[in-house]
């Protein structure tokens, strides 16, 4: 039987984390292919519905990543994202979602190895946890 491969959706801000992922590419830093990146202009642009929809559609893990507070192109986007994320976390925890499945990171352009590392970590954790309990059908 094929090994379970978790599906991860990563919402990455254009100015920092998306760029960090680009530089991971230029530097040929390899990481697992389980992640699909969705570009947003700012982590403050991430609406909770994007995360919930990802889980509805069967994502096993979601990463919300953007600039550090001092780097934000739009000044306070990371803080706004944090405020949204805190509420979202409470709600998905209530649904019984394990903590590792929804992750928030601040990764700047110069931190591409950290981007790769975060993906590695998530894949490893999710492989242990198995498919998301929020999937339509967990048991095959």
């Amino acid at each position, binding site marked *: 039987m094929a090994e379970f491969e978790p599906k991860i959706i990563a919402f990455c801000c254009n100015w920092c984390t998306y760029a960090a992922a680009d530089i991971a590419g230029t530097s040929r830093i390899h990481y697992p292919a389980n992640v699909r990146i969705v570009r947003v202009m700012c982590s403050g642009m991430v*609406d909770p*519905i994007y995360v*919930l929809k990802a889980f509805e559609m069967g994502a096993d893990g979601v990463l919300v990543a953007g600039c550090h507070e001092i780097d934000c192109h739009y000044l306070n986007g990371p803080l706004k994202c944090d405020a949204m994320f805190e509420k979202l976390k409470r709600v998905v925890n*209530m*649904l*019984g979602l394990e903590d590792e499945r929804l992750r928030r990171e601040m990764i700047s352009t110069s931190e591409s190895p950290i981007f790769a590392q975060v993906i590695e970590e998530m894949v490893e954790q999710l492989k242990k946890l198995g498919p998301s*309990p929020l999937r339509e059908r967990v*048991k095959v």
Partner: protein
Amino acid sequence: MNLEDIIKETKTYYCLECGKCTSLCPVSRHNSNFSPRLMLERALMGFGDELIHDRELFSCLACYACSDLCPSDVDYPVFTQKVRNLASGQGEHGDCAHSGTLLSLMRLMSRPDIKQRRLDWLDGCHTSEKSEVLYFAGCAPYFQPIFEDIEVSPVSIARNSIKILNALGIEPMVLPNERCCGHDLLWTGDVETFKKLAQFNAQMIKESGAKKIVFSCPEGYRTFKIDYPRYVELDCELMHITELLAQNLSTLSLKAKRSNLEVKRVTYQDPCRLGRHLGIYEPPREIIKAIPGIKLTEMEHSGAESICCGTSAWTNCGSYSKQIREERLLEARATGAEVLVTACPKCQIHFKCAMVDKGAEKGTDIEMKVMDIVTLIADALGGKSSE
């Protein structure tokens, strides 16, 4: 099912085109694009396609102001519900407020393998692992983080409900994995997911051995009572907490306010789902009147004439919705009451939302204290109550 079937099933061909529905409809009063009569007429005249793709199909609040007084007894809300089901199959769903997150959460609650952690709010409440009485909390725990910042605490309503049940000598069961009742999904056309939710809830409640289910949310109550029997079997007595209270008023010792609530004059909003849907008007009033030191003054439109709080199922919430709410809040203020008492968490959320004004230049000042009836009662019972 197609549109012809829906028309046959709901007997909407009896419509006289008299227009009474439109003149009573709170949405039509503010939104000239919407008229129950015209929507129906389109279906009857074979313009089903236009109807299905018209965003106004999702503007109806299902408040029953129309059908209650329709001379042909046309059930416009159920007709709308069924056409919305057709429409959702074609990708139409109106404009979802809060980006559709609430409906998404409700859909997620229908997933088979979830093990929710939804009982943190029970901390300090007296419940029982096995009881004949079940308290159905519904979406309250999920609404809490989302609506905290407009000063609505759905979890407090739940806690106060338990406190009231305790005062009646009941330590109810609260199920750890109960699902949303499905009201909002049913009314926005997602019958398939609604069925799943109904099946899960029915199964869990059967296994629990409960004989009686108490609700503090009229939408949950209505859905279990009227919509569930179509899809599942559930052999339980169903009550709104105010019904239970009204039956047992003599056993309760209600004192004139203590704590810091300082309430003297109140007015009461009949929730559509409790009032016109289920015909429950008197029990909440009996209870309010039973609290010494509190005077109840009715709004201009009360009881069966009550005006809806303006939004249903988080759909098509817009400037018209706010106008409906402002109209109702002005009626409330005109009674001279300090507090608007509601018996539905949705009413409370929608009225409080209308009072949010974070702009630099404020609009109409319609701030008023809004309180759920269980909070009013829990407070009058003395001891600790949650606000």
